[in-house]
């Protein structure tokens, strides 16, 4: 959920509670006010009645307890009653002709004295209909609530969007940021302090990361270069030693182990160098490469190895697959994938290579356990029992794919499948 709407969500909730509480308080306050003014009216009516009774004593004996003719009625009471009488206001229901229903009315009971005669006076007045009031109030409140939410949403989306624009600008850039591409961020100016702080911090962070990324890259490259000469010397000295001395089998065995390890080190070093070269964009020349022709060429190199493992390459192609890529890197890319299938493939099984106009796929049977999709392309990720692999082959393949916007992914369907998706050329 976006930040803008996120705040609105909370606001909507809080507003709902606030409005409800407010409505309850408002309702009672209003009701209280209505009663107050009704009661005042009734009391005033009583004074008017008393005055009228002075002029026209007949109203004292009209005997209309059902309020059929008038809205008041006098009943004669004893003196004792009069003295103990307590004035009261109460609500009751009365049949209303216009509404054809019982509606609430307010009755005021009081006692009055005219000389020695004592009367109880009842006056009624029409009352506010509480259920109608509540109903209408809820309706209006709902209206108010909706109006509020709509205006908040509008305000958020117009005003806040404007205010947060630098923030979203930064986020979009961060989303597209790739450290290996070495592109600088365009940090927007803002007159909001927090955004400026965020911007400068992000800028500093990125500059620092880029710096350390570059220095790390250079370090790997330099280290690999520096290792070449001592490795060359060691290997060559050993070769010379093997040639010039008559050695026993046991000695040869040990020396060959040393040689093998030195070769391993050489391979590792070469792979690291290759990786940093790919990342340093040292393969700029590009040509349109036909993947089928290239695959066949590479497979020829691996035929003997496959035959030794009693494996077979089965290539099927359906359409031409071409991509603009550096030739050497294309060779390395396909070689590494083929080699991977060959090294990890099960003996006596076929390795299937499928080429269509948009993908290059290799499938081999191996252990029935799916590899970890996340780390399969990481550097130095080795399957157990593969002492001789550098653990860089797939990482290199991935680096090359990334460089040429090819998508390399792995999946397991009973067999291990590595697939290279080629974007359709314009």
């Amino acid at each position, binding site marked *: 959920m976006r930040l803008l709407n996120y705040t609105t969500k909370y606001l909507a909730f809080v507003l709902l509670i606030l409005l409800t509480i407010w409505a309850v308080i408002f309702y009672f306050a209003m009701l209280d006010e209505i009663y107050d003014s009704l009661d005042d009216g009734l009391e005033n009516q009583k004074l008017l009645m008393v005055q009228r009774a002075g002029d026209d004593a007949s109203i004292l004996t009209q005997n209309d307890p059902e309020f059929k003719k008038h809205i008041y009625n006098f009943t004669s009471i004893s003196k004792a009653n009069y003295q103990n009488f307590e004035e009261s206001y109460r609500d009751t229901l009365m049949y209303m002709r216009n509404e054809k229903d019982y509606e609430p009315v307010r009755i005021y009971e009081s006692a009055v004295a005219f000389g020695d005669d004592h009367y109880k006076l009842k006056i009624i007045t029409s009352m506010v209909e509480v259920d109608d009031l509540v109903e209408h109030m809820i309706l209006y409140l709902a209206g108010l609530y909706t109006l509020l939410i709509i205006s908040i949403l509008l305000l958020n989306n117009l005003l806040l969007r404007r205010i947060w624009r630098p923030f979203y600008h930064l986020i979009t850039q961060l989303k597209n940021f790739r450290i290996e591409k070495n592109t600088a961020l365009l940090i927007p100016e803002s007159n909001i302090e927090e955004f400026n702080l965020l911007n400068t911090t992000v800028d500093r962070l990125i500059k620092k990361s880029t710096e350390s990324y570059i220095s790390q890259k250079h370090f790997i490259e330099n280290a690999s*270069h520096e290792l070449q000469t001592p*490795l060359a*010397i060691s290997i*060559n000295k050993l070769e010379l030693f093997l040639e010039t001395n008559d050695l026993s089998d046991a000695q040869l065995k040990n020396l060959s182990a040393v040689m093998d390890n030195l070769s391993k080190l050489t391979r590792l070093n070469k792979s690291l160098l290759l990786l940093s070269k790919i990342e340093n964009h*040292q393969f700029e020349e590009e040509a349109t490469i036909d993947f089928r022709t290239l695959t066949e060429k590479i497979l020829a*190199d*691996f035929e003997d190895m496959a035959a030794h493992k009693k494996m077979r390459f089965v290539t099927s192609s359906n359409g031409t697959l071409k991509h603009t890529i550096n030739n050497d890197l294309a060779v390395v890319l396909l070689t590494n994938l083929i*080699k991977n299938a060959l090294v990890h493939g099960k003996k006596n099984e076929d390795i299937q290579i499928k080429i269509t106009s948009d993908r290059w796929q290799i499938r081999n049977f191996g252990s029935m356990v799916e590899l970890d999709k996340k780390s399969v392309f990481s550097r130095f990720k080795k399957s157990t029992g593969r002492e*001789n692999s550098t653990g860089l082959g797939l990482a290199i393949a991935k680096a090359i794919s990334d460089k040429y916007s090819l998508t390399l992914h792995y999946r397991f369907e009973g067999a291990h499948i590595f697939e290279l998706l080629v974007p359709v050329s314009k």
Partner: protein
Amino acid sequence: MKILIIEDEPQMLDTMRQSLEREHYTVEAVSDFKSASDKIGTYTYDCILLDIGLPDGNGLELLKQLKEQGHEDGVIIVSAKDSLDDRLTGLDLGADDYLPKPFHMAELHARVKAVLRRRNFDGNTTIEIGNLIINPENRTVKMEGSELVFNRKEYDILMYLVTNKNRLVTKTALAEHVWGDHIDQSDSFDFIYSQIKNLRKKLEKATLKVEAVYGVGYKLEIE
């Protein structure tokens, strides 16, 4: 045959010199740009092994100097950098080959011999070894008049062993030479063995023998 090694790393230079001297070449060596420039200005060599990363100058300048002086010495660039640019510039400037470090001695010998062959036997390039006559130009092998047929890999192995005759050729060097650099990550080089077996079968009547050196590699011996 006169060979000049231009290499600033003394141990590297020493090993190369020892190995080449065993082939009875006349080997001279210098380890800096200045003396290298003097040497190639004064003498001509059949083959120059040139390290382009010299402390006091770029080896590529020496190539230019050779070209300006009209010398046609064979040149193999030896570099720890293995950069495509250097390789292309070097070959453009007239170098015959480019050998990235680290390399196997057997590979160095093969490259040196190839350069020497191209320089010195214009047209007549057959190699006689034992009772075999090899023509590298059209990749044919004859034994006492009749032709022996090898497939591509077998021929490459044979040629590599022939150029390194009587020397130990390690399995790694052989695999990298015949099957290419990319073969390297394979579990083992056992698959070489079946090719060697085929080769031996075809060489049954030849006076050459492919000897296995326990665990390390092979050696071609002439009976």
